[in-house]
């Protein structure tokens, strides 16, 4: 499989504080890559650095071409949708307005209408709450909304920052099933940050474990899953 996204020697900074120290990773075309690591390892920062939300150095290639958005709004224009840390829904707007904003860059009205229905077919709860303010949704519903909003862009690459955060196990399972379906049926590639290593490794084809800004282990997800010592030492399950 060719790489859709590739980073080489990626460094990231907040002001003068360096957080990433040369990360090499790849997301295959149509693949799912999981990014694991302890709190403060730099996972969120990596996603931010990709989207020009943190200063970065090094090489990032999207489809083999340099991917250097000057501002976060340029990332969306390259087909990269980001479900950020904390979900980032527009709390004061309705569910439907949130979804329409996800399609802000698209001009094909019919396609947008179809994708709205598709989002509702994945998450029927959102349809029931279509005219409700996003701020009144439960945490799980907001996560569904955040993912659906990102998909409204029809992205090539979906960046997900801890989609399971703060959600009940059953809700998490539902969301992961849908992510799997989206990946399989629509070929959307994903780079997923997760604390829940077992779930993430079950969905991903590749995985990287980062520690204080460096990749310590990377490879096929199946291999990480199979390696008892890695599981015990790094993944804790």
């Amino acid at each position: 499989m060719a790489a859709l996204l590739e980073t080489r020697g990626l460094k990231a900074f907040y002001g003068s504080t360096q957080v990433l120290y040369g990360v090499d990773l790849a997301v295959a075309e149509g693949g799912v890559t999981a990014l694991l690591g302890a709190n403060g390892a730099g996972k969120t920062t990596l996603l931010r650095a990709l989207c020009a939300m943190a200063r970065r150095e090094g090489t990032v290639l999207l489809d083999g071409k340099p991917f250097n958005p000057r501002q976060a709004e340029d990332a969306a224009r390259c087909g990269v949708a980001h479900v950020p840390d904390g979900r980032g829904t527009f709390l004061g707007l309705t569910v439907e307005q949130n979804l329409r904003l996800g399609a802000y860059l698209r001009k094909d009205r019919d396609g947008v209408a179809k994708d709205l229905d598709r989002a509702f077919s994945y998450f029927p709860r959102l349809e029931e709450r279509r005219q409700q303010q996003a701020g009144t949704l439960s945490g799980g519903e907001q996560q569904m909304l955040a993912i659906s909003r990102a998909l409204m862009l029809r992205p090539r690459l979906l960046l997900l920052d801890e989609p399971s955060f703060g959600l009940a196990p059953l809700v998490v399972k539902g969301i992961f099933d849908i992510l799997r379906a989206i990946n399989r049926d629509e070929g959307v590639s994903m780079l997923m940050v997760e604390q829940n290593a077992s779930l993430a490794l079950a969905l991903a084809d590749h995985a990287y474990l980062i520690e204080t800004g460096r990749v310590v282990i990377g490879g096929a997800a199946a291999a990480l899953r199979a390696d008892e010592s890695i599981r015990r030492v790094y993944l804790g399950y």
Partner: protein
Amino acid sequence: MAALIHQILSGLAMGSIYACVALAVVMIYQATHLVNFAQGEMAMFSTYIAWALINAGVPYWGAFFLTIIFSFVLGMAIERLIIRQFDGAPVLTVVIVFIGLLVIINSLAGFLFSYTIKSFDSPFPETMSFGRGYISPHELGSIGVVLVVLALVYAFFRFTPLGLAMRAAAQNPVSARLVGIRVHRMLAIGWGLAAAIGAVAGMMAAPIVYLDPNMMLGILLYGFAAALLGGIDNPWGAALGGFIVGVLENVAGAYLVGEEIKLTVALAIIIGVLVAKPSGLFSRAIVTRV
């Protein structure tokens, strides 16, 4: 009774002007959490442009629309060239910038057009066949113009994709960027719109308060009061606050205390309301459930 109705109606007319100013102030506040102290002076300058156009022979309504376009561009330019430079600066710095802008526009108007008071004609007839003694044609016309402006602004934010994008950019700039909205451009458009709305207020006020570089000072104060009363986080509450302040001011002036200290009474009532309900009468804090 007739006198009271007259006071209320002309209060609504002044109130419509306060409503525009309050709306302009709140629009910028919502996007930036900053109160633009120069909003009144921008409106005053726009009114001078209208005056100059009319004096140059442009028919009133032509001048009216040209002034609105000019103000929109001026507002965008001020955001792009000046306010943008202070992105992320401490609040106090930005307040100083706004006050500096106020002084600069005021003296620029004085320099260009002199400080002598000028009369500014109303586009509406001098007399009309109905409502005599209750409301003047200019008062009725102002209310009508402002209601049209409010309806247009409402429709813009409610029904157009650009309006929705501006609301998104104001509410959550980070997420707005992630869906591809050019947040800075939205901010500039917001400044343009606020300046255009302010220009309408200036042009409607000028036949009543006359045209001079300080014409908007009192009006801006009432506009702020209206915004606080109605709720600084709700543009429509703020506009409604404008009408309420206009009526309060007029009725208090006529019946309670006389013209000299009506401002005091009106402000006292507003402070009373704010003590009871600090976020304003029509505040709509987002219902969150986290």
